[in-house]
């Protein structure tokens, strides 16, 4: 019998500072071990098909350690982290380490591949937009006032040196969780694991099928009843699965729905974007970026994903 894992539409993590964070372990009725811990702004779980809870505890700890390491380095809120350092450089250049440089390179590539739609500097727009399910839209003037501080093209990036103009910020929330999933998967793979599933707040990677050869069943969250219902169960043998969506984060005004996916060029939500896009790809980060790119295409999301030839599930 396949295992169902609920996958929520991912939201940019609200990273928590270091507090007491437990790893809890339980054995599911299906026989696999489920390790749970909070990280990257949400619940995380690692599913391991092995009988020995002690070994499972070690492996879950390995994955959790990676999640917490990435969270502490790349959370905007962690004053000791790299992103905080970049955002508080006040226009001065910052020299990055190898891993951070690779992340910025990747974000730079995503900016190019999405024709500027994916932009790690667009987080500044959140000062105007409060996606709380209410109906208060920002004034066009308030949005326009922020636009000069948005645009990756304004940053000077010569790896390993990054210089942001004064007043600009970056936010790796759109990459970090998927990146953490893939890095945790690398850790587990290096430890010899080949029957496990990693799910960090809805971003998923399977390191191989269950021990009996059956796929893990990943449930796609119903954006209308998030956390309560699954609209579909997706079998996953190996590889990444990520979902991008607006779940609870949208505004409604005069019957019109404003999703939380913002166009960095206009500062306004992308029109006609689906409620949720799920994509399967060889890695979690590929799946996550393709889902995000599709959201940014608005009503063309499906056309884009079909042209890319990836397996996908869209909820409009």
């Amino acid at each position, binding site marked *: 019998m396949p295992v169902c894992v609920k996958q929520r539409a991912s939201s940019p993590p609200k990273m928590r500072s270091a507090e007491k964070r437990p790893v809890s372990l339980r054995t599911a009725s299906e026989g696999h071990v489920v390790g749970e811990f909070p990280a990257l702004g949400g619940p995380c779980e690692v599913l391991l098909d*092995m009988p*020995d809870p*002690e*070994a499972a505890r*070690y*492996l879950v700890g390995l994955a959790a350690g990676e999640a917490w390491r990435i969270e502490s380095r790349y959370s905007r809120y962690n004053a000791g982290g790299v992103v905080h350092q970049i955002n508080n450089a006040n226009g001065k250049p910052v020299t990055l380490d190898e891993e951070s440089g690779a992340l910025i390179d990747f974000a730079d590539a995503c900016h190019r591949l999405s024709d500027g739609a994916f932009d790690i500097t667009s987080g500044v727009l959140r000062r105007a937009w409060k996606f709380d399910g209410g109906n208060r839209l920002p004034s066009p003037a308030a949005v326009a006032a922020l636009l000069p501080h948005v645009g990756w093209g304004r940053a000077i990036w010569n790896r390993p040196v990054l210089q942001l103009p004064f007043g600009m910020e970056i936010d790796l929330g759109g990459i970090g969780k998927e990146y953490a999933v893939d890095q945790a998967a690398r850790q*587990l793979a290096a*430890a*010899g*694991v080949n029957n496990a599933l990693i799910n960090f707040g809805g971003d998923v990677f399977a390191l191989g099928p269950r021990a009996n050869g059956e796929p893990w069943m990943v449930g796609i969250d119903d954006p209308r009843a998030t956390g309560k219902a699954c609209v579909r169960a997706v079998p996953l043998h190996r590889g990444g699965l990520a979902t991008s969506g607006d779940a609870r984060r949208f505004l409604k005004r005069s019957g019109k729905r404003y999703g939380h996916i913002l166009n960095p060029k206009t500062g306004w939500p992308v029109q006609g974007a689906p409620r949720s896009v799920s994509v399967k790809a060889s890695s979690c980060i590929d799946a996550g970026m393709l889902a995000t790119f599709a959201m940014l295409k608005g009503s063309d999301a499906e056309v884009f994903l079909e042209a890319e030839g990836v397996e996908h599930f869209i909820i409009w």
Partner: protein
Amino acid sequence: MVLRKLLACLMAAEALSGCAMQQVQPWEKDLMAKEEMQLVPDRIEEFFDSRVFFSREGAFGGKGVGGGGCGCN
């Protein structure tokens, strides 16, 4: 032959350990990988001890081969 008896002993122990125990998986080797879990965690301690006891007792060896004699008095 004592040698044959010892060999039989060794084989029996090996068969026991092979059948009765569940295979330890690669990801369960975190403890085994530690330096202090190696067969000889401190090589110099091992060396000094073997020298002292070799030169003061009639029995010797058992841990391996190699290493020249020492002509200890």
